[in-house]
């Protein structure tokens, strides 16, 4: 169970926008930056930075939430390896959270289905369709790995699209009567939401096996298959 004085670190390296959050169940501090592919070099430095500007020590961490993807495979591996090292090293629990669930989370209760997406490299996106049922987001159908211009395919009703667009690609290029894109500040993932989702799992007494946690790998179709 969550410690009322606990401190959770959230790590999201699913895409070229990297994010960290510290959350104690009341206040959330966030750090979001454009890391590009250079996550391996800077992630841990940013973690120690976020801790120090909030006047925390590494030893005060009591749990970790980490984004499992979908996203870029190497990026996810950097976040997961870091989370595992800190979790194992400090003997604290690590919770894996679906990156698309983090993306859909703030649009909870907007009375519209949400198509949450994440860039997956080479101009591709992975997306999933989410609906609000029984006070939580439930995904319908399989996750899709497609090119960005296929992002609005198959929308049969007005849908809110939320996610980070791949570099140099803008949503206005995707005209579709059922697609409504959230504003940039609203459609990007926030590490604070990842922290809340992880925290909720923690106070519900859930547990992940830190060793077995692995990224969610969503492949595109191979040419010719």
């Amino acid at each position, binding site marked *: 169970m969550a410690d009322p004085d606990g401190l959770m670190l959230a790590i999201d390296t699913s895409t070229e926008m990297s994010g960290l959050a510290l959350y104690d169940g009341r206040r959330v501090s966030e750090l979001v930056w454009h890391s590009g592919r250079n996550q391996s070099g800077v992630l841990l*430095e940013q973690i120690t930075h976020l801790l120090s500007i909030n006047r925390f020590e*590494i030893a005060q961490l009591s749990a970790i939430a980490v984004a499992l993807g979908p996203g870029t495979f190497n990026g996810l591996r950097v976040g997961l*390896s870091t989370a595992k090292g800190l979790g194992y090293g400090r003997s604290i629990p690590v919770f894996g959270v679906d990156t698309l669930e983090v993306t859909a989370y703030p649009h909870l209760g907007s009375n519209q289905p949400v198509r949450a997406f994440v860039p997956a490299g080479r101009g591709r996106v992975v997306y999933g369709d989410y609906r609000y049922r029984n006070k939580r987001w439930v995904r319908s159908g399989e996750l899709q790995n497609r090119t960005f211009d296929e992002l609005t395919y198959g929308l049969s009703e007005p849908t809110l699209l939320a996610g980070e667009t791949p570099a140099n690609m803008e949503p206005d290029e995707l005209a579709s009567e059922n697609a409504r894109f959230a504003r940039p500040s609203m459609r990007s993932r926030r590490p604070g939401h990842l922290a809340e989702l992880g925290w909720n799992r923690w106070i519900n007494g859930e547990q992940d096996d830190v060793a077995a946690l692995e990224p969610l790998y969503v492949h595109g179709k191979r040419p010719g298959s």
Partner: protein
Amino acid sequence: MLILGIETSCDETSAAVVEDGRLIRSNVIRSQEDLHERYGGVVPELASRRHVTAIIPTIDVALQDAGVAKDEIDAIAVTEGPGLAGSLLVGLNTAKSLSVAWGVPLIPVNHLEGHIYSNWLTDQENDPTFQPPRFPCVCLIVSGGHTELVLIRDHGHYDVLGRTIDDAAGEAFDKGARILRLGFPGGPAIQRAATDGKMGHHTFPRAWLGETYDFSFSGLKTALLREVEKYRREPLRPKKVVSTEPFPVHEPPEYAPNMPTADIAADFQDAIIDVLAQKTAKAAQEHRAAMVILAGGVASNSLLRKRLDSLLSAPLRYPEPLLCTDNGAMIAGAGYYLYQRGIRASCDLDISPQLPLSTETSLA
């Protein structure tokens, strides 16, 4: 001083605890051979995936085997390169976060330097026969990823005399074994097949590359393909047209039953070993090496050891087979000597997939 060594540069996930750069307290190696066999070689993406789930249990067992608690580790040594980027990332980021979590120094190790230091390791606390290498020594590092001939004048002083300009020696064995249907990894498979073979019936080219200490093995594959061509048969089963595999699976070639596989393997192996042994012996003589040491997977090849022994006047030293594969103990061993020279990494350390072996600037 207890150093935890972490190595994930290719397809082995490994962690080890080594005391004072010499005594192996534990050395856990999780090989992925089973995973890559059906692809006929290492698939980098699959290797990275396996590292992610193997890394923590590997480290945990290494500490348990050594009988060491987390807070007894004095430093962490990790491979920063060269190697596969996606694989290196896993070990490096785990090591960095462990060093922050435990508040201990992090030591960046060149994978090739790790291989060299496998010759400084022992698992016996009191072994009167144990003698570390003497300087200057010539080291031949031969594995699936590397073929380097190095002159070592002292700890940390490396002159790379030569290296492969195309395939590594171990890679040539892998490709050869794939063509001959002998399985993966190719080095041990070809050596096994060659023991029943008679040499001298098949000719394979040797690339001497003039007076240099460089190597070239890519021509061997072409020569081998030419050699087996007359035995080649069309596959009986038609190839599957549609594959649902995310990674292409290796389809082995089919041959007539009378193909003299063992004889071909024997001559093929000889062509690789001949060049390795002769160039190493020549370098040892030219640089008056006090000792010649071997490292890397191909160092386990008994023909290489035998051939070198007959050519060398200096003593030959090689690690036991387990230490010839990629392993955490060699990283911890090399890390100890780097630590003694004051080498530390800060937490912005990143991987270097193309990292060359060179003398540190502080020593040059």
